[in-house]
């Protein structure tokens, strides 16, 4: 069940890992280059291990957990085959779609993301998948999290990115999961320190500094196989607590002026992205963020449930983008959605769809070059399981994010090179 159990023994304690590390080399000089961003990326830069990643870019991955039906997200408008395969769902999707061009439209509940499209800030990669797809949620999630379709790796691709490129020891907000209680697989790596902030309202330790000191000493001194895990967890609390408090203060101060900024209150995604925005705009040093919206496993009565979920996504992303924009940070932040698989083109008798394969990824924000990428899989040429055949390896999308957005070495993280999917503006443009 838990995949890191053996590995946990290999992890050394932070105190020993940290010994000998020199922080701060070159930090002040680099920070000067970003004077417009008060202290914000000084710390992100501070934590960089190598030249290429000393930049102020931020990545936000949004997981649509359960398998998002991309045929009801980016909807083919002209393909009669869609109506043959899913008469009920297509009839309730195609006519009300928000057209992007002659061939595709967005789900009716996506006006916010449609506005990003109109500004050239939405890239859609069609046909994203991997060879021999798994129809298990957990296996396929692991494939996407580790960037390994052979299912041998256990470290997450973002976790690896942290380990290879940043000194997360002492900078636990470099990788941060918002709105959850455990470390998402994508951020997991034995040598990466990652923060998890489930709820901004209850963040903090009751009982004051005495409790904080006592708990710190107790948990740092844990013998046994969980010693390093406990040590890291409490150190992360201690090292992030003041940054997060500052961020939350900026949230309560900054947002009252801005009546237009409405995060949806119906799901945790809105709260998680609001927290993410406050961490980004307050200068906490966050770099790689992960949030999740669940509920996409629509085997049954898909129509209304899926519309609602897509609506939550749309409102949350629109508010998040707007938030970044009014803080002058929108050009630094790339937002990407991912889901373990899409759904089967053919609908079932329960008014839903079963597990599918190839999907579409949405990449949003000022860094993207708007438009369609990849190749739309044919609805007339399904595989033996009745599913779409993928045309773009999902790792090609990761590669572009790593190389072009973060300035990291994608090959070092993914182990191989893929054909480019150039959905990002060239750096400096």
């Amino acid at each position, binding site marked *: *069940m*838990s995949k890191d*159990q*053996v590995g946990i023994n290999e992890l050394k*304690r932070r*105190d020993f890992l940290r010994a000998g590390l020199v922080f701060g080399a070159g930090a002040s000089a680099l920070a000067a280059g970003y004077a417009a961003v008060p202290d914000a990326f000084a710390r992100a830069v501070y934590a960089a291990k190598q030249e290429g990643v000393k930049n102020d870019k931020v990545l936000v991955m949004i997981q649509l957990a*359960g398998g998002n039906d991309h045929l009801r997200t980016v909807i083919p408008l002209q393909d009669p085959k869609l109506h043959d395969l899913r008469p009920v769902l297509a009839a309730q999707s195609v006519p009300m779609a928000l057209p992007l061009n002659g061939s595709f439209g967005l789900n009716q509940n996506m006006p916010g993301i449609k506005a990003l499209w109109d500004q050239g800030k939405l890239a859609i990669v069609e046909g994203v998948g991997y060879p021999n797809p*798994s*129809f*298990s*949620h*957990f*296996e396929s999630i692991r494939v996407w999290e580790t960037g390994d379709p052979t299912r041998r790796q256990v470290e997450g691709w973002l976790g690896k990115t942290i380990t290879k490129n940043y000194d997360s020891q002492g900078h*636990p907000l470099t990788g941060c*999961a918002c709105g*959850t*209680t*455990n*470390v998402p697989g994508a951020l997991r790596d034995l040598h990466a320190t990652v*923060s*998890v*902030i*489930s709820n901004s309202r*209850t963040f*903090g*330790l*009751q*009982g004051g500094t005495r*409790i904080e000191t*006592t*708990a710190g*000493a*107790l*948990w740092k*001194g*844990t*013998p*046994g*196989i*969980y*010693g390093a*895990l*406990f040590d890291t*967890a*409490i150190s992360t*609390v201690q090292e*992030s607590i003041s940054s997060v408090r500052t961020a939350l203060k900026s949230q309560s101060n900054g947002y009252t002026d801005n009546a237009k900024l409405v995060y949806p209150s119906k799901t945790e995604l809105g709260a998680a992205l609001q927290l993410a925005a406050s961490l980004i705009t307050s200068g906490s040093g966050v770099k790689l963020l992960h949030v999740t919206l*669940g*509920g996409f*496993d629509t*085997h*049954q009565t898909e129509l209304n449930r899926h519309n609602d979920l897509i609506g939550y996504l749309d409102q949350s992303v629109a508010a998040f983008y707007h938030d970044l924009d009014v803080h002058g940070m929108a050009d630094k932040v790339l937002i990407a959605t991912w889901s373990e698989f899409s759904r089967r083109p053919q609908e*079932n*008798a*329960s*008014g*839903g769809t*079963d*597990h599918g394969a190839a999907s579409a990824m949405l990449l949003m924000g000022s860094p993207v070059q708007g438009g369609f990428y990849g190749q739309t899989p044919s609805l007339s040429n399904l595989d033996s*399981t009745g599913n779409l055949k993928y045309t773009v390896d999902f790792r090609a999308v990761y590669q572009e994010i790593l190389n072009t957005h973060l300035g990291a070495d994608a090959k070092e993280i993914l182990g191989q090179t893929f054909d480019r999917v150039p959905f990002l503006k060239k750096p400096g443009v």
Partner: protein
Amino acid sequence: MSALRLLSLDRKIPSVRSAVVPKTEGKTVEWTSPLAQEPARIAHLLRRATFGAGPGDLDAAFKLGYGKLVDQLVETPPAEPPPVPGMNGNSVDIGNLQQWWVDHMLASPTPFAERMTLFWHGHFTSDYRKVGTGQPYMYWQNLTWRKVALSNLASMLMQVTIDPAMMRYLDLATSTGKSPNENYSRELLELFTMGTGNFTEGDVRAGASALAGWRLPVAADNSRVGIFEPRRAYSGGPLTFLGRTGPLELKGVIDGILASDASATFLVTKIVHHFVSPAPQARYIRRLADEFRTSKYDVKTLMRSVFLSPEFITGQSYRSLIKSPIEYMISTLKALKAPQLSKLVLDADEQMGQMLFDPPDVGGWPNNEAWISSSTVMARINFAVSALSRLRNLPPANDLHKLQLDGVLSPVTTKLLDQAGDDRARWMIVLMSPEFNLK
């Protein structure tokens, strides 16, 4: 590896101060297992098979002895929970239902039944968000899981398949022979019995066809399980399922699953991860799985074997598991003898990552190291702080390190307990300690 056996359970040692703290010099230190001694073995068993021991519980268990305690745990039929307070007609208030179960975990004279019910709730899982609260399905499921928790796997799988909450959670209720819904069939094979790699997509489809035709009970049925309607069922030709071809219905699906060696291995591995060790040896799993098959998949026999196995009480097993949030909170309230604080559990469960009747997904809750992150550590500490702040009088804390922590402490815990000025401070240290968070 320096030894860290600081204190024995020997009552002659009066205080923590008398302990000799070995110099660790920064090396990874292992807990020194006290499990060679029966009292420590008993405390270990109660931490894992129940929700820990309060003042008084241990003495009663010591009198029984380890073997008889195992008998008592597995042989005593589960105490029936009281009715859910405020249950009005068919609909269920989820907060009431969660509170009801927490209270029963604290009060029940058969806590092993509650521990097993919680295990199965995380395995054959369903959540109230999808199942809904307009019908008492989640409540019924809890009663059913408690009833079948120690029966044999074949009858359990039958119950699980036609449990109304499950039928709704994994969509069997709307699956028809003409257009089967694969959701339940897939998870039955992948998550409930066999694990990935032991079945094909064809098996998922054949299973889905064979299992179609069940609908939810209506009032006139006067039933708490699904109703089979032949006209909604599959009426096509023979199906090939797990290598056998022929006519196939629910019983055939379960038989097919249990005929596969993978099923016992899969389930035994999960039980061992939850009750014994996160990294068991393959030959231990093989031995238990062989026994499980031979016993015709009798869960009671399996659990007895687990608790009586040498592997359960080895040094590698000692403190090798992390208490789940529910276990951490219930054991805290039991140690404090403070069931009146059970409402605090519902304030803290979300922040720790475990809300009853609301698992994160169809895989149930992850366990062990997945319970610990910066966020959940804070929530655990905050729970201890807030529980203690609500109690004017605390149980005596003199022997706390022995009663709750087997007298096996880290150097830091030893030092802090030594320096603690009063009982309240000692309670705080013990409840916050890594020792108390492990089992």
